[in-house]
């Protein structure tokens, strides 16, 4: 069995650690590229959302590399992500690939049950071993996310262009290879120190921008054209509101984060509408209250929950007097066009601060 999965931020690192931990061969799809997108677009419905298309591209590239089993998450709606796997399987079948697709329903409640279900697809695996490698994988993910959060602030102050990004990439690679919790912690603190040492630029006016929106678009720098880096290079500190670790831990352990979202969104959006629509509204309110300079909302074309959120946060923007810009991404999005829009947005933010 040669297993593969779609890319989504640092997800591949966790899945790889987990599956290799239980002795299953993993075929990582090549990093998402223009070729991946082209393959996905060619074989998907015109109006399906961008993550779906990139998944299809990932799968095709991985199957070409010799994978024979695809692991995909399912769901119970109302976001269409929950039905992705069912449709993708038919697309790949029509392309003539021979493979098995395992569609796992997301963990509702206990991680243990989720792993048990997972283990049922791999009869020779002890789920206790699986749990152990899963926990190591989760620790890596949390560390990687911490490092990214730190980078998105510090890179705005870096001494030479690109220097902190280089350090970050180096330490992410080290994290991937880490064998235990002690090593993970050591790599993390070393990486943070090194980034800090190379970020000493101070400004009179320091802008802060929150990135809200659809989780896949926020997690995959290749699909959002690395918007965090673009903003950092314009001297803006960035707070990204979606991380894989937050998401997985919240959906696995039912932490009170959802209640916090509901509280923040009250008066604007009164319930979960699927996908990350509620998060987008709640986070926009949260960072408006924290007096951030602006909010950038990113979403894939035709994403229904985010379109509803887009209408609502326009009102949040008026009520709290905070600039909000929505960027819609699809396969035709051009880098130059968005660079211009982001620069104009940042100029506006400086103007508002009197510069």
């Amino acid at each position, binding site marked *: 069995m040669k297993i593969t999965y779609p890319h989504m931020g640092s997800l591949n690192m966790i899945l790889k650690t987990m599956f290799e931990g239980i002795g299953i061969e993993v075929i990582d799809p090549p990093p998402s590229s223009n070729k991946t997108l082209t393959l996905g677009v060619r074989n998907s419905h015109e109006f399906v959302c961008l993550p779906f298309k990139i998944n299809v591209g990932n799968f095709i590239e991985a199957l070409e590399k010799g994978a024979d089993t695809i692991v995909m998450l399912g769901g119970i709606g109302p976001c*269409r992500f929950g039905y992705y796997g069912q449709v993708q399987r038919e697309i790949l079948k029509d392309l003539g690939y021979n493979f098995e697709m395992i569609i796992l329903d997301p963990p509702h409640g206990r991680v243990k049950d989720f792993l048990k279900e997972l283990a049922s697809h791999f009869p020779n695996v002890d789920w206790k071993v699986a749990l152990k490698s899963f926990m190591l994988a989760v620790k890596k993910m949390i560390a990687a996310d911490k490092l990214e959060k730190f980078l998105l602030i510090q890179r705005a102050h870096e001494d030479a262009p690109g220097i902190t990004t280089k350090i970050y990439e180096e330490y992410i690679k080290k994290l991937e290879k880490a064998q235990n919790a002690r090593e993970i912690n050591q790599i993390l603190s070393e990486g943070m120190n090194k980034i800090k040492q190379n970020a000493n630029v101070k400004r009179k006016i320091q802008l802060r921008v929150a990135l809200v929106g659809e989780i896949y678009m926020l997690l995959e720098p290749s699909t959002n054209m690395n918007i965090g880096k673009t903003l950092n290079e314009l001297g803006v500190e960035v707070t990204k509101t979606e991380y894989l670790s937050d998401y997985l831990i919240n959906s696995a352990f039912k932490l009170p984060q959802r209640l916090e979202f509901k509280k923040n969104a009250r008066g604007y959006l009164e319930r979960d509408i699927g996908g990350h629509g509620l998060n987008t509204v709640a986070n926009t309110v949260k960072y408006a209250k924290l007096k951030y300079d602006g909010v950038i909302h990113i979403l894939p074309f035709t994403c*229904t929950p985010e379109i509803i959120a887009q*209408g609502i946060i326009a009102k949040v923007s008026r009520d709290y007097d905070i600039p909000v810009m929505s960027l819609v991404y699809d396969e035709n999005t051009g880098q130059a066009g968005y660079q211009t829009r982001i620069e104009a947005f940042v100029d506006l933010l400086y103007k508002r601060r009197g510069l």
Partner: protein
Amino acid sequence: MGKIVGIPKGLLYYDFYPMWKTFFEVLGAKVITSQNTNKKIVDDGVKNSVEDACLPVKTYVGHVMDLKERGVDYIFIPRIVSVEKKKYLCSKFLGLPDFIKSLIKDLPPVIDIEINYYKDEEFTKREFIRAGKMLGRTKGDALKAYLKGMEEQRRFKNLLKEGFTNLEALKMWEEGKVKVREERRRFDLKIALLSHPYNIMDEYISMGLIEKLRNMGAEVITVEMLNKASILEGVAFLPKDIFWTYERDILGAGMYFLKKKGVDGVIMVSAFGCGPNSMTEELLERFYKREKNLPFMLLTIDEHTGEAGVMTRIEAFVDLLRFNKKAVVV
């Protein structure tokens, strides 16, 4: 004098108007609807909506503005989460009242109760009681109105199963006349129309698609005319059921016709940018292509769709179906 409750003529109006109208009228309110969709309504909707929203949502925004201009006491914009157990509706219905309230300023009070049968009926009953309280009526009154509404809804649903379109059934229900289905024309073709009623029942948005097909000699079968058993029979051919009610119906009907025939061709109509349809279209198109024995056409409509283009495509499709038929007979 009773208060005036306005109901926008869009989205699930075509599915639940009898229930909603009865409920408010039993409670002593006067119910008015917005006008039929027209250019102004669509323009208002497009102007005041989010660019990427689908056409039915934009049109709905236009209908709400129409009601606002006409000065009603309340506007009924329910948050429809689920209309049956363990199934959802598309996200846009879940956030609809919030979305509309954010887009349109100075709205009259909105009755934004949550219709949610995901777990049971009790929740929704409580919400209708809340609507009754907004109109100053007691719990008992509201429950009575709710039950009466459900009864009227059943009568309306029965008309659909007799082969009337939602629009015809709504008219018959409102006028209280029981008609026998007239065999207006001799139809030599049968075409299934797979779509949300808010696309094909809105004669402005769909450019009178149903009448056009009938004028070409085709009898039209919609998803709503099928009984639940047939839909579930169709669903059983899918690898996995889908979690949206209306998409389940469309997929189920599509698979039912593909496997059981009974129609000469199938047209699927969807709105530009429709999220759920991107999944159902993809699946149906693939399943139809694999079997290659029932003609299938996709028709996408948006605010720029030209009537001539649609006409050309359905004419060509109908010609193809006739050609197929003769090939079999001869």
